[in-house]
Each structure stands twice: as structure tokens, then as C-alpha cells.
């Protein structure tokens, strides 16, 4: 096992600003609850008189629903309610889902309960509430549905062909705002263009054009979806659930149920992983409707097979990449065409694929086409840097091939062509300050890169090393915090962002830094939609950036209010009072925050404030990864034996959680690269609907993941924060593919690079 190194590299001396709290590694506020089993997740919620719901799911990938007979199910003792799509209002509108993009609510509602057709195996058809989950499950089996089977459309490229079976007869390809005349499975065609690619390719000394495919994969969070809904007789609906965004659940419930926002409260519980998959609602509306019907709280949880069959996977894709370079290794033109499976309803992250495919490079002549395509698979949802991993797997593998052809060092090629401040990027203004080149420098200087690889493993195994870069743009969006100064000088901090990986800590740390108090004196809570301002989802690597910014602004606002009260007390203008950390002073008089807090309490005053921000200065994140693999040419099995992730975090608020995001993203990327996939048969039946058949990585599949945090501050945040959560999943498939080539001389252009495919490629190459 390699020696483990973790490093932090500030970009310049000036960037290494000295902070009191930021950059330290305190224990997270919710830590004790989570190591003692006390933390309450969605499935742990228990209410008096609560009953249990289960869902009937489609056995077919594509079929018309002829009839549904619920009478036998309703007759079972203990069954209280059976609902179908008839129990949901018919809705047509679009709504924004933050990182999840824009969604047609008719589609969202139709995904929650199928209407005329089922569009994938696992599509919900009906739901049952009963006095026990076992009775509900029995009743589900007694619902009789008559289907008329239709041909399933499972392949993204076949789905685009003329004359193929259509999933929706009212779907028309939209290109630059124009809708096509004939219906199609292609929902949208996106185009990003700059310069003149024909001239660029004409000027090239070398052109490499390759096609790539990637399998449908799942976010694989360990906690299945869940919801508890209580609909009171006065119309007040409260929903407890594990979600990445309580307000986004509220919006979706409002739209699907046509129920006023003011009558819906969403209480976000602790959440057991999301990675983008816990943005859309699935069970929440069903539990709500059944609760309304029977007047009791209804709890629903999915089992693992339901999670895999019924919730958002990330798309399988086809990506073509063509790049031209001159004799010096400068890119003259770059072109890509990519088609993403949206699943049963439009809305794949192909736009983000377009935005990221050539993002690490300064490209002057470029054209990128993206297609959003419906197929008979579950409606895709966001998954960590949605769209980027598949796109950059293709481009970073082509770049490696070019480096080999030219005999150029892969770090040097990337640095020579590397995107930096002011360079063009797709669908966004030119780059602000970014840390792409700094990551490459840190990669080159790393112990891993400088340690030669022993090429021979044991038992005839062969080793290789590869690198790949990755980019994710990160987002801002709306975040809120509110806070109160308590009588003992501590602060109660209320946050709208659900905490999936330590954001209570990273937000409280920024507040403590800005307010001049100790981290331990800040008591953060994630609260419900009635108790804090609107906040977008925890996703898009935005929470530590945007909600952190809200906390910083909140600290400033609380200081202003304290000065206002002191101004009255001291009879001086508020702006004559200086705040130095937790000490407020004017003309020789001074009070500490603790003294002020006690004074306010004595006088019956409460210092409190609420802040909402919608920042636009989110800074994109670059990463470069180094992978060493060992390939068994006999079996095709690939083991990752050493791995280093280099990433620009802007500023690491809590370095342990930044490292954790990097390591977690890398291991998801390793799973995606080597063994995760949805295996479908020709009828569209998922054949591996369990954790170990789907095959997420275990402790035995991964080495320790070395991290190097580069800090190039984001000018759009007072402490320089960029998002960190998403980009680490982007480089692993390409880094591993490039390492496999280095080991055994074959290019794998189809994910996952499973033993069967590697073995076949090695054998084919040997003739």
C-alpha cells in the first residue's frame, strides 16, 4: 500500500490568508447524534396513528394501461386506501428544480403515477395505505392491471432514428427555441459554437476522432427514498422526508397536488445521501393524497429494488469527440456530438455535458451538439456533476491518445492548452479566475507523479498510470439563513440547506469567522420551510458557497443591529462604533459580545436577523487526477492500486470535509469506470436490481485516496470558496482508461470497463 499523503497548496502567499476558524477541523455539530444512532432520518419518523404505504410498479418497460382493478386489494382487512393517477389533479406547467434543471410538471406528475402508459419497468401505477407495511405489500400484489405491451426503446441512438416507436406523441424536438413539426424521442438539440471548426481542422497536423458510450448508472445513496405525510382536516399538509431541498419538495407538492404553498410545510429530516437523486419527489405526493383520504399520517419507504428501478439514474450516453492539434501540440479545433438518455421524460443533463466536454482547454474553434433523448428507462435525475463525467471521459481519453501520438507529456499538453481566466467556455461568460493550471502544477509536483511506477505486478499482472482533468462549473442560487443572539453570547443559526456531508459545520465556521466568535458558540440547525427563508437544493456544489455567503451576510447584519442598540445606549451614532471581532467599542467604552447579549436579555431586546442571498459569483472547480492500475490480462480485472486527486477548492473551509468530498467522488468515479451499470435484457427488464448485483464499490475495491487541495480563491466569495463536491467524480473514468492503455496498450471506450470488455480488448490486440 502506497504511503498516504494529503497536502494543501495555497496558490500564492497572498492567498494564504490567516483565519481564526476557517481551515480548522472541528467536529460537526450533528456528529454525536450520528455516531450514537440518535439522528432522525426520514424512515425513522413515527407519528401517532401512522399507517404505511406501498407502491405498485410496472412490470413492463413500455405498455398501455388498459384497466386497473383495485377491488380485491381494497377488500383486504387493514387496507385503508388505494390510489391511482385519477387521484392526482391534471397539471401542465414547468418549474425550476435548481440543479435538477427545469421540469414539466405534467411529466413530474406522470412520473409519480403513470397515466395512460407505463414508460419504464418500475414506473409507479398505484399506491396502497394499510395498517402495516406487510398488509400494504400484500394489497399491492392484489391490484389487477391489464396492459397492452409496446416495444421498449432502450438505446439512446436507436431512439433517435426515424420511424422508431415514440414514448410521447406530444414531444417535439426543440432547437434554439424552435419546435419541430413531427413528434420525436429527441426532446432537445443544443448547439454551442465558437470560431470556425472547418478552418481549425484544416490547420491540424493530427486529428483524432473517437466514439464513446457509457452505461446507465445510479447515485447509489444508501438510504432509500422515504416520506411521511400528515394532511389535517383544515387542509394543512406537513411532510417529513429525506430531501436535498425542502423548499423544492414544497414547490413540487404545490404543483402536483394543486395545493396552496401556505398550507404545505416540509420538514427535512437527516438525509442518507442524495448526490442529486433526492431532488425530485416520488413518494411525497402519494403519501399526502392517501393521508388526505384517510385522515391519518402515512409513511412510505422504498426498498432497494424500487430505488434502482423507480428513481433517477444518471443517463447512459453516446459521445463523439474529435480534436485537431498542430505540430506543437496546440489544439486547433474541437468538436463533439453527444446524446444523453433522459429516461422516460425529457430533462437529461446534456446541457452540462456540452458545457464541460472541452472545459479544461482554451479552444478557439469549437462546435458541440447535445441531444436530450427519451428512452424506456427511469426518468434520469442529477448525479454529482451531472453530465460532465460522461463528456469528459470522452474528451480526456482523446487528449491522452493525442499526447501518445505526439510523444508529449500529458501534463505539459494540458498546461499548454489549459483554460484560464478570460478564455471562452460554452453557455457562460469567459472564465473568471480559475485554478486549472495550478492543479496541473500540483499534479506534476506530487509525490505520486514523481514516483516511478513498477510496471510488473504479481502473477503476470501489468501496471499503468494515467491522468485526466475535469471541470464542474458549480452554481450559486438562492440561500437563506437567520440567526439570533442568545443571552449567553452564543448564536442560534437557522439554515435552509439540508446537511448531507458536513455543511452545518462549514456554514457555522464561516459565520463564526465573520462574527468574531468561536465555532463552538454557533449552534446551527437545519429547519423546516416555515422557519427560514427560501433556500434552493443542497446540490451543484453550492451550499458551502451560497449558504455560507448568507451566513457571512447574516453575521454582518447582526453586527449592524448590535451597533444600532449600542448607539442608543451610548448616545452616539452607530457608525462611530467599532466592532473588532466580538468586542464593540466607542471612545474608550467597550463591551464584549457576551456582555452585550446579557444586557439585551435584561432589557427585553432580541438581536436577530434573516438574510437571503442569490449570488452570481460561483467559481468553477478544476481537478486533475492520477490513477495507477494493475490489469490482469488473463481475466481483464482492473484494480486501482494508487490514486491521487488534485483539486482547486478555492478555500477549504473544513479541510477534512473537502478531502472527504474528493475521496467520495473518486470512489463513485471508480465504480462508474469499472463495474457499475444497469443491465437490461431485450424487453427492458433490469436484471441487477440490488446493491451487490449493481455493484457499488466496497472497501476491498479501492485504495486510500490521496488528496491535494489547491487553493486559488474564488473572487466571488469573501473567503474564496468554490464548490468542491462534484468535480471529483469527473476525472476517474478517463484517468483509469488512460492507465489501462498505459498498462496493456488497449483503449476502452465503453463504460464500465468491466473484466469482460478489458479481456476481449486485450485478446483482440494480441490477435
Amino acid at each position, binding site marked *: 500500500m502506497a504511503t498516504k499523503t494529503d497536502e494543501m497548496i495555497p496558490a500564492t502567499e497572498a492567498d494564504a490568508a490567516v483565519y481564526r476558524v476557517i481551515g480548522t477541523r472541528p467536529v460537526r455539530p450533528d456528529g454525536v447524534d450520528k455516531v450514537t*444512532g440518535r439522528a432522525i432520518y426520514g424512515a425513522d419518523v413515527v407519528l401517532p396513528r401512522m399507517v404505511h404505504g406501498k407502491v405498485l410498479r410496472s412490470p413492463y418497460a413500455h405498455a398501455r394501461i388498459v384497466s386497473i382493478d383495485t377491488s380485491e386489494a381494497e377488500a383486504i382487512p387493514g387496507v385503508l386506501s388505494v390510489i391511482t393517477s385519477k387521484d392526482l389533479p391534471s397539471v401542465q406547467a414547468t418549474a425550476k428544480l435548481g440543479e435538477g434543471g427545469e421540469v414539466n410538471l405534467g411529466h413530474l406528475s406522470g412520473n409519480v403515477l403513470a397515466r395512460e402508459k407505463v414508460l419504464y419497468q418500475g414506473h409507479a401505477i398505484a399506491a396502497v395505505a394499510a395498517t402495516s407495511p406487510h398488509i400494504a405489500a400484500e394489497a399491492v400484489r392484489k391490484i389487477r392491471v391489464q396492459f397492452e405491451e409496446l416495444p421498449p426503446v432502450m438505446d439512446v441512438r436507436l431512439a433517435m432514428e426515424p420511424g422508431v416507436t415514440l414514448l410521447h406523441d406530444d414531444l417535439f424536438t426543440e432547437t434554439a427555441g424552435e419546435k419541430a413539426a413531427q413528434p420525436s424521442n429527441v426532446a432537445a438539440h443544443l448547439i454551442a459554437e465558437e470560431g470556425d471548426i472547418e478552418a481549425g481542422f484544416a490547420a491540424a497536423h493530427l486529428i483524432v476522432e473517437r466514439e464513446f458510450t457509457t452505461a446507465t448508472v445510479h447515485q447509489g445513496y*444508501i438510504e432509500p427514498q422515504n416520506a411521511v405525510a400528515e394532511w389535517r382536516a383544515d387542509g394543512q399538509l406537513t411532510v417529513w422526508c429525506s430531501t436535498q431541498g425542502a423548499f423544492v419538495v414544497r414547490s413540487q407538492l404545490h404543483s402536483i397536488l394543486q395545493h396552496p404553498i401556505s398550507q404545505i410545510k416540509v420538514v427535512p429530516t437527516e438525509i442518507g*445521501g442524495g448526490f442529486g437523486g433526492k431532488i425530485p419527489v416520488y413518494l411525497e405526493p402519494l403519501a399526502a393524497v392517501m393521508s388526505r383520504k384517510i385522515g391519518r399520517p402515512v409513511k412510505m*419507504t422504498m426498498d*432497494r429494488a424500487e430505488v434502482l428501478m423507480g428513481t433517477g439514474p444518471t443517463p447512459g450516453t453516446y459521445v463523439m469527440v474529435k480534436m485537431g492539434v498542430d505540430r506543437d501540440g496546440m489544439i486547433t479545433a474541437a468538436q463533439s456530438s453527444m446524446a444523453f438518455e433522459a429516461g422516460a421524460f425529457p430533462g437529461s443533463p446534456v446541457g452540462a455535458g456540452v458545457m464541460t466536454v472541452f472545459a479544461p482547454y482554451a479552444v478557439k474553434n469549437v462546435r458541440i451538439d447535445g441531444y436530450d433523448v427519451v428512452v424506456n428507462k427511469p426518468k434520469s435525475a442529477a448525479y454529482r456533476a451531472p453530465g460532465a463525467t460522461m463528456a469528459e471521459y470522452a474528451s480526456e481519453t482523446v487528449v491522452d491518445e493525442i499526447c501518445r501520438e505526439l510523444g508529449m507529456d500529458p501534463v505539459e499538453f494540458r498546461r499548454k492548452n489549459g483554460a484560464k481566466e478570460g478564455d471562452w467556455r460554452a453557455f457562460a461568460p469567459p472564465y473568471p479566475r480559475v485554478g486549472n493550471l495550478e492543479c496541473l502544477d500540483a499534479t506534476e509536483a506530487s509525490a505520486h507523479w514523481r514516483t516511478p511506477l513498477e510496471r510488473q505486478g504479481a502473477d503476470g499482472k501489468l501496471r499503468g498510470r494515467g491522468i485526466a482533468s475535469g471541470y464542474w462549473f458549480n452554481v450559486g442560487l438562492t440561500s437563506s439563513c437567520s440567526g439570533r443572539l442568545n443571552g449567553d453570547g452564543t448564536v442560534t443559526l437557522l439554515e435552509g440547506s439540508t446537511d448531507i456531508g458536513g455543511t452545518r459545520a462549514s456554514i457555522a465556521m464561516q459565520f463564526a469567522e465573520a462574527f468574531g466568535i468561536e465555532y463552538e458558540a454557533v449552534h446551527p440547525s437545519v429547519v423546516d420551510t416555515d422557519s427560514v427563508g427560501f433556500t434552493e437544493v443542497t446540490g451543484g456544489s453550492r451550499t458551502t458557497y451560497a449558504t455560507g455567503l448568507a451566513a457571512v451576510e447574516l453575521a454582518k447584519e447582526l453586527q449592524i443591529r448590535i451597533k444600532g442598540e449600542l448607539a442608543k445606549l451610548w448616545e452616539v451614532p452607530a457608525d462611530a462604533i467599532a466592532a473588532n471581532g466580538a468586542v464593540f467599542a466607542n471612545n474608550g467604552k467597550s463591551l464584549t459580545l457576551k456582555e452585550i447579549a446579557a444586557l439585551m436579555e435584561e432589557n427585553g431586546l432580541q438581536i436577530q436577523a434573516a438574510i437571503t442571498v442569490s449570488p452570481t459569483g460561483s467559481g468553477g472547480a478544476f481537478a486533475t487526477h492520477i490513477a495507477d492500475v494493475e490489469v490482469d490480462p488473463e481475466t481483464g480485472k482492473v484494480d486501482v492500486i494508487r490514486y491521487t486527486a488534485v483539486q482547486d477548492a478555492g478555500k477549504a473551509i473544513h479541510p477534512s470535509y473537502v*478531502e*472527504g468530498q474528493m475521496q467520495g467522488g473518486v470512489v*463513485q468515479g471508480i465504480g462508474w469506470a469499472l463495474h457499475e451499470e444497469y443491465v437490461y435484457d431485450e424487453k427492458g427488464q433490469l436484471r441487477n436490481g440490488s446493491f*451487490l448485483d449493481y455493484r457499488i464499490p466496497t472497501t476491498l475495491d479501492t485504495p486510500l485516496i490521496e488528496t491535494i487541495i489547491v487553493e486559488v480563491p474564488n473572487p466571488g466569495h469573501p473567503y474564496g470558496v468554490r464548490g468542491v463536491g462534484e468535480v471529483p467524480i469527473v476525472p476517474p473514468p478517463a484517468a483509469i482508461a488512460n492507465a489501462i492503455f498505459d498498462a496493456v496498450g488497449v483503449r476502452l471506450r465503453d463504460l464500465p470497463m468491466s473484466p469482460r470488455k478489458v479481456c476481449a480488448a486485450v485478446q483482440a490486440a494480441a490477435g
Partner: protein
Amino acid sequence: MAATLMHGKVAVSATVNEEPVDFLCEPRESLLEVLRERLGLTGAKEGCNNGNCGACNVLMDGQLVNSCVVLGVECQGASLTTVEGIGTPALVPLQECFLQDAALQCGICTPGFLVSAKALLDHNPNPSEHEIRWWLAGNLCRCTGYDKIIRAVQHAAEQARTEG
């Protein structure tokens, strides 16, 4: 001897976290359901309900089991330890190391990892990295990439050895 009562439920007597406990359950209920739904011990989590993920790990007469694939009625006379039985009232070094080393992100798999790692350290106080990985291969975590979990268990073992 377990007795069958009306409504098809069975009476079971067991010891849970060193306290005597009597409960009624249907023969088809798993130990995980009994712990969570009947005894209010929601520390054990359901991730897969088929023994794949280890989030529901508990100790049954000292043996590490997936409580989702043990029936409640099989627990007559058994002594069970759940995550709630570890570190009450003060945290044990394993829990402290999980916190200090940031070995959890969402925390849903953490109870299973803690119970599993406790079982490992109870019988092997000086495990190698590979032994830790081998033992914990039945516990899935999707957030951490396992790195910080492995280190937390290593640190807990080190602490126990220096203190012991």
C-alpha cells in the same frame, strides 16, 4: 419458548443493550423491523433489506449479523447489541475517532460501520489495513470512499492499544 398469541403474533424475550426486553412480533417480521418499529431503536438502518449493505448490523450473542435477514422470532433468549448500546452515556474511542477523523458524511451507514468495527476490534485489537477492509467489506458507504473510515478504525485500534 416463544408463545403464539392472538392476531398471529409471537411473544419473544431477549436482552437488548443489556436490558431485558419482551416484545410481540409477527413471524414474518425481521429483527430490523422489530428493533425499529416495535422497540423504537431506529439506529439500525435499512439500506437494502437483503444483507447487501450492512447498515442494519447488530451483534447477536456476540456475532455480527445483518438484522434485516434475521427474524424477530429467532431472537428468543438472545443478547443483542445495537448502535444505541455503544457509547452510552460517554462515547467510546471508536465513536470519537469517527468524529475526529470525519469518517462520516451523511451518516446513514455509520451505525452499521460502528457495530461492525466494534466486532472486529473486540476479536482483533491490532488489525492491518487489509484486515479492516476485509472485515468491513459487508458495509457499504457511498459518501466517503471509505478512506476516512479505515483511518478512524486504525486510530481507534491504536488508541485502545496505547490505553490498554
